[in-house]
């Protein structure tokens, strides 16, 4: 593939890398696995890039490829097994920003989200990224109504975890 193509791709990915990092943060729970998934998503994005026509935003396109890789294509590598779990380290919340209850709530919420299944995580991710139900349904291949119903169920589930 040409150098110009490579250059434009790297530039775009560098600019929007946060999306990929967020996917990795949601689907992995240690440092090595995070990097491993980031690497795989980058490869998949790069392989698909020549077909990217620019009629959708690069970031929108990244959501799809990123989630597809995390949910379907990614095979956990062996070297990610015996590594230190960073749950609670990476999600440390700055104390000065919140009062104690909010901080506690967030900690529990992040933990709760990590316990959801892959599909539920994808829904929460897109919701947190401010995507509307039409976009959520198009990304996952389910109907808008079902996306809404499922999202409500996840909210109830999280509420129960937070206020037992």
């Amino acid at each position, binding site marked *: 593939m040409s150098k110009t193509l490579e250059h434009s791709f790297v530039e775009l990915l560098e600019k929007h890398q946060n999306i990929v990092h*967020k996917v990795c943060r949601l689907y992995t729970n240690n440092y090595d696995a995070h990097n491993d998934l980031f690497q795989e998503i980058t490869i998949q994005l790069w392989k698909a890039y020549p077909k990217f026509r620019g009629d959708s935003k690069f970031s929108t*396109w990244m959501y799809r490829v990123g989630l597809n890789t995390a949910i379907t294509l990614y095979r956990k590598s062996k070297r990610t097994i015996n590594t230190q779990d960073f749950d609670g380290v990476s999600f440390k919340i700055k104390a000065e920003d919140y009062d104690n209850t909010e901080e506690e709530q967030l900690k529990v919420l992040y933990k709760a989200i990590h316990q959801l299944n892959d599909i539920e995580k994808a829904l929460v991710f897109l919701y947190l990224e401010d995507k509307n139900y039409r976009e959520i349904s198009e990304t996952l291949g389910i109907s808008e109504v079902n996306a809404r119903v499922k999202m409500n169920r996840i909210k109830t589930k999280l509420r129960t975890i937070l206020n037992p």
Partner: protein
Amino acid sequence: MDELDLLKKDWNKKPENKKLTAQDIYPMLQKKSSSIVKTLFYISIAELVFWTLINIIPYFTSPAYRTQLDNVYTNKFVLVLINVISYAIIGLFIYLLFKAYKSISVTDNAKKLMESILKTRKIVSYYVIYNLSIAFISMVVGLYFGIKHNPEISAKLEHSSNYEIFVIYGFLTIFTVVFVLLLWLFYKLIYGLLLRRLNKNYKELKKLEV
């Protein structure tokens, strides 16, 4: 306040602490993918080659087998016809597999992507089932003709009691069943491990539609 709104506020505020530079990203493009599609591709190529060789090798390496086959198929036309059909079927499978791989696109929606992968895996398994059936039929036909055309075995069998014949056939049946069962378990294991997560997530998506 909605719990998720609280999270959303925090989620979008949080800066990413591992910002990569272009220099970090360039080498990543040269790395090899370790996706399940790639693994599935290698497994299916291996299967295609393996089963084709299993069917072809005995014919070329064992003159006795070739003579036996030539004896069974006294009609040359039938032998040629069978060969043409079997190569056409292999060709068809290669074509279908290639088409299925081409249809796997990471930019499809999640459900469609999963369906394309499962469809590809199905084509490979049809190829395996086809080969197993052929192997089974050849075994039965081979045994039948082997016994019929071999005067020694025929003579021996004529002197055997019904009980002995029953034991021989019973043993052969059990052997075949165990062989097929082991093979089936082996496939369940390979694909089960590889596609476990995909199957789980696909079921989860399907569940949303009910």
